[in-house]
């Protein structure tokens, strides 16, 4: 019992220390910078804003819709990118044709696409989902392709030797062998996609953490902006931890 507390304490202490450090630096900048208070709110101001957001239930509402959009976009990206990536990884000739398209589109910010996203997907939920989809799609696709391409030769030889059908080979050999690589792509994609939440909720969305931030910014309520930033940061951190947990579970499950 005491030991468990001790162990948890040992783990959380540096986290708390880190966050306190952040608060202290922030407060120092506020005090030493002599900025207009509305232009750089102090930690206390933001805490009050955050508290109000929580009490009024607004935060939870925004958070819920953001998470909903994120999950839909991310899961869609997963469902499209993984099979496509596995296919492209197994068909190097096709990949050589598709690769330049991917490479050309990947470095373009979703913001640049927004006129076309509005044209095709309207405003509200769908563009936000599409932007999160786009942000998650490329890392997952590329990691799936890379994962499949580096499946050890020996596994492929084994499946030839066992005369597995192409489908059985994909399901039983290629996918699981590529999975650790794909999982790291999935992990990375959570980060990238979550970053684009703000961009996604700029396109006519009326709710969500991204909207909260943009709206607060337009109202020059920078305390709310920071409250939104903290919420996004915390939530991103939790999502990241969740994916990490999932990864570790899979690893344990497979004894690797």
């Amino acid at each position, binding site marked *: 019992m005491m030991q468990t507390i001790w162990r948890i304490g040992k783990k959380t202490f540096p986290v708390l220390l880190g966050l306190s450090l952040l608060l202290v630096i922030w407060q120092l900048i506020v005090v030493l910078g002599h900025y207009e208070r509305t232009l750089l709110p102090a930690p206390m101001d933001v805490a009050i804003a955050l508290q109000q957001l929580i009490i009024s239930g607004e935060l939870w509402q925004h958070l819920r819709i953001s998470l909903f959009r994120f999950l839909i976009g991310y899961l869609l990206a997963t469902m499209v990118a993984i099979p496509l990536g596995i296919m492209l990884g197994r068909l190097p000739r096709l990949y050589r044709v598709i690769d330049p398209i991917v490479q050309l589109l990947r470095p373009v910010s979703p913001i640049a696409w927004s006129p076309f996203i509005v044209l095709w997907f309207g405003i509200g939920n769908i563009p936000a989902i599409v932007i999160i989809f786009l942000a998650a799609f490329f890392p997952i696709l590329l990691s799936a392709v890379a994962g499949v391409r580096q499946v050890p030769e*020996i*596994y492929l*030889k*084994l499946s*030839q*030797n*066992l*005369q*597995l*059908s192409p489908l*059985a080979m994909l399901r*039983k*050999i290629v996918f*699981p*062998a590529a*999975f650790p690589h794909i999982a790291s792509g999935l992990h990375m994609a959570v980060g990238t996609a979550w970053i684009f939440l703000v961009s996604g909720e700029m396109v006519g969305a009326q709710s969500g953490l991204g909207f909260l931030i943009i709206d607060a910014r337009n109202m020059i309520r920078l305390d709310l902006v920071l409250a939104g930033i903290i919420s996004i940061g915390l939530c991103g951190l939790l999502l990241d931890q969740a994916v990490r947990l999932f990864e570790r579970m899979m690893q344990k499950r*497979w*004894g*690797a």
Partner: protein
Amino acid sequence: MEDTATVPAVSVQQLCKSYSQDGYSQQVLHGVNVEIKEGEIVSLLGQSGCGKSTLLSIIGGFEQGDSGVVRIGGQLVTKPGRHCVMLFQSYGLLPWRSVRSNVELALHGMSLTKQEISDRAAHYISLVGLQDRMTAFPAQLSGGMQQRTALARALVMQPKLLLMDEPFAALDTFTKYALQDELLRIQQQEKVTIILVTHDIDEAITLSHRVLIMQATPGTITATIPIVAPKPFDRGDADFQHYRKRILSLFRLSGTKQVEEFVI
């Protein structure tokens, strides 16, 4: 049953193979002839890079020779198949599957019931002495246990021919000795034909009925040494030392060029 006595288990005739890389081509095998009887254990002994793995690969159907003919049980080899199983040096176990599941994979696609699959897998796992570790994953096993699992996975397919590429190279001496004995025991029980690639002279003498000596550039079989002795062959035996010296001298005498390459 009668014609198997006349048709060799494996027959390789005038096999040639070259690899080209960066526009420069290298002859790896040149006019290789091998004939192996059913139930025989034959070792391919040679230095690193002389083409042993390549020859084994071609016999297994994983690669194609440039010219020459390879037959298994009289049938022309064109692609890999279940009649002939390759045991890789790195075992090729799937790390995300347990011992049992790795072995059962080899029965996938056969028209067997779940119970039959499970029974047959369990039988061969017991045969290699892993009945207590069926649910373990490869990463939880020692090297020797991993090699046993791979062996069980190969045997469960009941192949006519087993190809083994340096199967014991990564094991420590004690484990190696134990596994070698066990391989002989299982081979006598299952009557499988084995081609064994190795660069360990002692291993070749201990295990095989015949040792084929391979030399490099281009890879050819320069000598065949029948080992006439009961198996397993005791390493302390005087005859053992005789074979050992003979094989060593074969390598030493194949020209100064070769001796210098040893030093590499």
